[in-house]
Structure formats: structure tokens, C-alpha cells
């Protein structure tokens, strides 16, 4: 069963996107609303994994949009064939894959669009949608059997 903070550095999803507490004034906002994505020198950032990058507080990595979701995809590692289809199609870079192995979902950024489930080719599917409040263990215990071919 997946760790909810899979491959996450401490800052991932630490604040709600629209939270409005202690906002700074006009004299402190960035010039031209230009927002740097990283802290410090980011020359090598393309070669680092997400959890190794020094994302700035402006980067959406540090914000969670989990509350936008009403249904969530659940990943079943026992059925997955690591085809990477879901990784390719996910519009929110929320499929976590390392060394071409599918590991799970970034639940801070997944918006529940169901595209990963749609493109999953296995039988039964390795990704299925469940209600947001369903815990992962219960979800996995309800996984369907392989569909038999019709004769």
C-alpha cells in the first residue's frame, strides 16, 4: 500500500493554494509578479529528482490542491506492468515513477481526473477510482478479479 508522502521532500503540499493568512503588502510582492521556481542556483535541476530539488515557496510543488478532488485513483502494485502509460498521460505530473517503475500517486497534486485509470491497459486495471474518503487498504481489498475472455 502506498505511502501518502511517497518520494516527497518536506515542502511538498505544505500549504493550501488559496489560504489567505498573513499575506505580505504591496511593498513586498515581487516585481512584475515574476516568481522564481527554486531557491539558490538551479543550473542542474533538470538532472535531479523532485524530492532532491530546492523548490521555492512560489512553486506549486509546495502547495496542495488535494481539496479539489472528489474521487481519487488508487494504485495496485500487484497488477501493474510498469508500462508508464499513466505517467505519460497524467496532466498534473502526479504519477510517481522511478527507474521506470510505477510507485504511486502524488496525492497533493492529483485532481482526480481519472485519465490514468482510462489509459491503464492491464486486466484488471492497476489504477481505479475510489471515493476520496475511502482508505487505501479498504480500496485494495475490494479490487476486482481478472475478467475472463468470453467464449
Amino acid at each position: 500500500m502506498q505511502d501518502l508522502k511517497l518520494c516527497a521532500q518536506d515542502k511538498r503540499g505544505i500549504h493550501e493554494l488559496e489560504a489567505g493568512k498573513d499575506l505580505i503588502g504591496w511593498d513586498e510582492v515581487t516585481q512584475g509578479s515574476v516568481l522564481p521556481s527554486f531557491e539558490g542556483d538551479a543550473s542542474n535541476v533538470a538532472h535531479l529528482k523532485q524530492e532532491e530539488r530546492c523548490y521555492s515557496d512560489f512553486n506549486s510543488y509546495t502547495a496542495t490542491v488535494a481539496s479539489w478532488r472528489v474521487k481519487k485513483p488508487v494504485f495496485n502494485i500487484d497488477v501493474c506492468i510498469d508500462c508508464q502509460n499513466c505517467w505519460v498521460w497524467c496532466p498534473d505530473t502526479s504519477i510517481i515513477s522511478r527507474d521506470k517503475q510505477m510507485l504511486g500517486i502524488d496525492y497533493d497534486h492529483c485532481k482526480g481526473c481519472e485519465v490514468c485509470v482510462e489509459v491503464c491497459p492491464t486486466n484488471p486495471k492497476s489504477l481505479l477510482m475510489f471515493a476520496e474518503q475511502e482508505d487505501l487498504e479498504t480500496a485494495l481489498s475490494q479490487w476486482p478479479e481478472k475478467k475472463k475472455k468470453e467464449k
Partner: protein
Amino acid sequence: MAEKFDLQEREVWDGNYAASQAMRQAKVDVMAAYPITPSTPIVENYGAYVANGYVDGEFVMVESEHAAMSACVGASAAGGRVATATSSQGFALMVEVLYQASGMRLPIVLNVVNRALASPLNVRGDHADMYLGRDSGWIQMDAFNSQEAYDLALCAFKIGENHSVRLPVMVHQDGFITSHTAQNVYPLTDEAAYNFVGEIDPVDDMLDFSRPVTYGAQTEEDWHFEHKAKQHKALMDSVPVIEDVFAEFEKVSGRKYKRVESYMMEDAEVAIVALGTTVETSRVAALRMREQGIKAGVVAPRVFRPFPFDEIRDALENVKSVAVLDRSSPGGAMGAFYNEVSAALYTTENRPLVTNYIYGLGGRDFAVKDAMDIFADQKANADAGHITTDIQQFSGLRGPKLGFFKTKRG
């Protein structure tokens, strides 16, 4: 390397050619343009410099003015020195992106050759397009002749790219009257011009891969107001930089510019406040009025944005009657320029009488005689101690006399 362009000490250039030479001398990295009358020759001439090897930068032909300004935004965000030119309908199509450029604090230089806005379609000069850019957050400077179109275009880069400003700058000139009238222009040498403008020192440039940045963030009610306030303050605070650049330009050229130009105002009793080529016409008229014993003067904002509220007030507070001339159809209000000048004068002790004249729409000629008639109206107001005419009148219009509103003072 770009070929060297031989220039005489004195050249005979129209306003368009003068502006194109300033773009070449500033060594613009990217010009993205979609030519439109009457600014077409700026782009056309610049294209010829590119074709003949006088330019090292990129010249991008696009499919519309919206795309032209969008390409300028991209190139400027990338960190380049960027310029373009447009007029009228093209300016109108650019408007959406003008706000993007200023909001992102990108120091693009836009040469605007002022022309009327359709409908009815008209290619001649009035200030409808210049007024359309009024609230766009750009610095707006106004040239009254070809020399000034050249000088101000060079100053524009140095002002906009200054790190304490970082705002886009428009340089306006009157369509045809300035843009197509050949006049004596004294250019700087290529070396002197580039030394004056200097190299661009980019800020938050997208080609800095060690510091990736997001441009064009979305900010709703929790952030938008703060960003716009900061932008407005930057525009208001650009005043000392504009004055410094004008002072530096005087050192290299001998030509002195001020945020508000005043002519014969030391003892003036009546004044015309105008923009563009009308300023020179009004100066001639003021001299003729003085021959008749009427103390006439002329006041003209060189810098239209940020609006010189302070200097307009200083220039006009001791005058008895002021005529503010708007060369743009006011669309159901007093002229915008009239309103701005009036607001400044309302905060003075003396509160001069202020009247509004709509004139010269669609390139209708504004002659010395027209300006003299306006001065004569002001003299009558000054003598009577109140406005004797309608507050808003139309100068040079055929048909029955048109005017709006009477004064409630005196």
C-alpha cells in the same frame, strides 16, 4: 558585426526615419512588428537596415499587432532589448498585450505614430490611439517634431531599462505631420548614441537557466491589488529617472527636455495646453497674440505618463484662463486631457478658468488662426473673470456651433 552607417552632422529626416535610426543605433536585440500606416516606414526602414547588414539583432515579421507585442513580451522577458512601432487600429489590437508588458515590468520601447481610430476609417493623425494607452501602465513621451522623435526614442530605452523603473515606454509622434514631414535632424554618431543608451542589464531574464522564473502568474483578489499598486508606484517613481536621463541627454546632444515644456509662460495671462505638433502651431499663435498686446503662452507635457500633475500646476497656477486642447473624440465626457489638467489646477490657490477644445480629429488641420481664436476666447474669459463660452467647444468643425456646459462660477 553590423556595418557602420555613415551619418552627416545634419540629416533631413521625417519622424519615421528618425525613429528607425534611433532603433538601429540602440542595437535592439529583437524587433517584432506588423507595419501599419502611418508608422509603416519605421518598420520598413528598419527592415532595410537588417537586409543591408546594419543590424545584428533579430527582426520578426508576425501576423498581427497582437502577435507583434506578444513576441516583444517574450523577447523582453528572455532578457533582450526590444522595440516595435504601430499606429491606430494596430495599437488597438495591441492593447491587451500592452497591459501584459507593463504588468510584467518589461522595458519594451513602442514608437506610436498617432492616428485616428475607426469608425469612420481614417489614416490621418489625431490622438485617439495615444489616449487609448493612457491607463496601460506605460511611460508615454510625446515628440512634437522629427528631432524629438529621434531623441526621445533613444531616451526611452535608458529610462525603461533602468532597474528602478523597469517599465515599457511609448514615444508618440503625430501621424503624417511629424512622421512624413522631412525636417532637419541632428543625429548623434552611432558610437555616441550607443554609449548614451548603454547595454541592457536584464532582470529576471528567462534565459538565465540557473534561476528559472514564472512570468504571467494569476493573482486573484488576494494578490492582484498589491501587484497593481506596486506597478503604479513604479510609474509614479520613474520621474527622477526620466529627469536624470533628460539631463544626461542634454550633455551628449545639447538638447534640453523637461517633463513639461513651457513657452512664454513667465508673464502669461492666458495659455494653451496641447500635445504633439499643435504645440508648435500654438507657439506661433502666442507670438502673434503678443504682438497684439495679449500675454499668451503655451504649456505642453513632454511626458504624458506619468502625468506631470506637479509641473502642470507649477506652469499654470498664475494664469487667468487656460484652454486645454484634446485631439481625441471625448466619447461623452469632457476631454480626458482637460480633466487631468483641471484636476491639477483645482488644487492651486488661484484656480485659473479652464476651458476645453476638441480639435483636429482625423487629421483636420489646426492652423495658427485657430489657435489665435482660442487665445482670444481666453482673453475674454480673463477680462470677464469667468468663462464666457461653453466649457467644451469644437475648433475647426463645420456646421452649427457645438458646445457643452456653462460655468457656475462668476
